[in-house]
């Protein structure tokens, strides 16, 4: 039998039971749609996070006290500005070193108030990280060395406190202390689940005075090139360990962060896909079931076909194609449904989603495979039917 003819027969058989075929397909449609949509969401999230981590700037080395491992207790930081000076000497360029001390504070301007993440920083922050200003200017070295009470507002904070009014030159209070606004950041949106537009940058010295502390929470260093990151990392950690023998220090690069996040998200996407895959499996069982019913219903037809010369293989192929046609049609519909769902999620919700050709190809391949796997048993059963018995069936 020619394959084209076998396809035609399979199509005819499915058309003869339109509603049943559609309902059977539905299981596969939903399964494939779930796989495509969930993998799309997983991939989209991963891409977004990677972009954001990359958006921090390249060749970045983050240094924090304590060990970076799950379950490690947070260490209180022993770092001070003296350490920063020491690290700057190791790096050989102060403009490549950024620091931060964080504190959540209430900010006020006139009658308006809000909650912001105050970050005590050096004037180097915009060059170490990639951070663009919308208006005004960033902190200067003098601001930092004199502990001047000036602030650069994140777009969210600026909006909350001033609305459409230009905030440059205006007064705000942070934790009850007066600061003057000298600049605002471009809007950034969420990053790693943190609202980065809610930051307020002030000189690290001013922040330390406000909080009544000498400490700084962490350091970031921008290496001159990728090759030197590892050496630099080792030198920095050695210097800090030398100065604070009781504390562990960890230095991580962007690649390491990306690697860890990528692994976590990869596992998450895999788990989502596997859960969706289960529904595909259930759809496959439905296909198998219906094919068995179809074989039984068409026993006489099978007997007749055999009587006029069909080989067992011809009959088997016919039923297998029917199952594959059922699942691949379901697969294509599921791909469309899943794709549209992913796009809608991406558009209408904060959850990002990205369609990848491989997830589509995989879904289609899997649906074809489901057809073959779940069609084989009914097809074999049909192929093996004894023509005499089949013809006698009423």
């Amino acid at each position: 039998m020619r394959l084209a003819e076998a396809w035609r027969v399979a199509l005819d058989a499915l058309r003869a039971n339109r509603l049943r075929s559609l309902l059977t397909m539905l299981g596969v449609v939903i399964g494939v749609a779930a796989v495509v949509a969930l993998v799309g969401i997983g991939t989209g999230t991963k891409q977004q996070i990677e972009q954001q981590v990359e958006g921090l700037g390249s060749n970045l080395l983050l240094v924090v006290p304590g060990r970076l491992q799950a379950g490690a207790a947070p260490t209180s930081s022993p770092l001070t500005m003296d350490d920063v000076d020491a690290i700057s000497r190791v790096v050989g360029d102060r403009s490549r070193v950024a620091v931060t001390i964080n504190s959540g504070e209430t900010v006020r301007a006139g009658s308006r108030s809000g909650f912001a993440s105050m970050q005590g920083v050096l004037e180097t922050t915009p060059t170490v990280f990639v951070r663009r200003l919308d208006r005004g200017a960033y902190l200067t070295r003098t601001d930092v060395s004199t502990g001047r009470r000036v602030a650069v507002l994140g777009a969210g904070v600026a909006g909350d406190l001033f609305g459409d009014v230009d905030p440059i030159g205006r007064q705000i209070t942070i934790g009850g202390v007066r600061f003057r606004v000298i600049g605002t950041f471009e809007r950034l949106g969420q990053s790693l689940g943190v609202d980065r537009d809610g930051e307020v940058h002030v000189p690290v010295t001013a922040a330390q005075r406000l909080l009544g502390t000498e400490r700084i929470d962490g350091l970031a260093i921008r290496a001159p090139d990728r090759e030197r990151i590892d050496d630099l990392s080792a030198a920095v950690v050695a210097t800090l360990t030398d100065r604070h023998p009781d504390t562990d220090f960890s230095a991580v690069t962007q690649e390491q962060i990306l690697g860890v996040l990528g692994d976590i998200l990869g596992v998450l996407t895999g788990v989502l896909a596997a859960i969706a895959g289960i529904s595909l499996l259930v759809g496959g069982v439905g296909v198998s079931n219906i094919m068995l019913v179809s074989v039984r219903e068409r026993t006489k037809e099978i007997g007749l076909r055999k009587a006029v010369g069909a080989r067992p293989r011809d009959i088997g192929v016919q039923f297998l194609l029917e199952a594959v046609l059922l699942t691949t049609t379901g697969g294509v519909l599921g791909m469309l449904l899943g794709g549209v769902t992913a796009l809608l999620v991406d558009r209408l919700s904060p959850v990002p989603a990205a369609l990848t050709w491989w997830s589509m190809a995989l879904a289609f391949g899997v649906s074809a495979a489901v057809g073959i796997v779940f069609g084989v048993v009914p097809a074999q059963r049909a192929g093996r039917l004894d023509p005499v018995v089949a013809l006698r069936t009423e």
Partner: protein
Amino acid sequence: MTTPAIVADDVSRTYDLDGVSVAALRGVSLTVEAGDYVAIVGTSGSGKSTLMHLLGGLDRPTGGTLLIGGRDVAKLTPDELAELRNTTIGFVFQSFHLLARTTAQDNVGLPLVYRGAGRRERRDRATAMLERVGLAHRITHRPNQMSGGEQQRVAIARALVTGPSVLLADEPTGNLDSATGQSVLALLESLNAEGVAVVLVTHDREVAARARRQIVMKDGLISAAG
């Protein structure tokens, strides 16, 4: 001398029903010559259909030897047997066994599907065969749009479309009224006149009498042959 179309030598067929063996045929010897015209008669349950299924390669004997077109059925693979059914034998059933929702033309062309013929060729040959059985005006009709006699003619056209040397008909007129039955019979006889061997099972003595020879079956054996 031409080889006989079918040679059955001491052929038996035993069914195994839950450990109990039922002997439907208990040693039948029969030769169908090329161009022969044989009628098989006998009481219900005597084994006529069982014999026809064996002669047509739809089933295999459990004992004895059976040669169809000179080939020993016991030595054929399932695929070879299928090919034999496709090329050498034409089978006509009492209940027609046409595919529903399928036109007369495509029903007739069905055996050609299994020899890899294209759609065009199948339709051409099916149309010619339908004209041959007097159904030129029913080419695109479906079985439920045709009378019993017309359906049986379609079935005969289907049996003939591959140009078989033997036509096996198991009570082909059993579901038809006598006038319609007569015309179907006349069709079979005209085919026989063209050289196709015809083996026919019937309960009708008159029908049987028209054959070149008659075989009477009883309890799985040939009780009389002429």
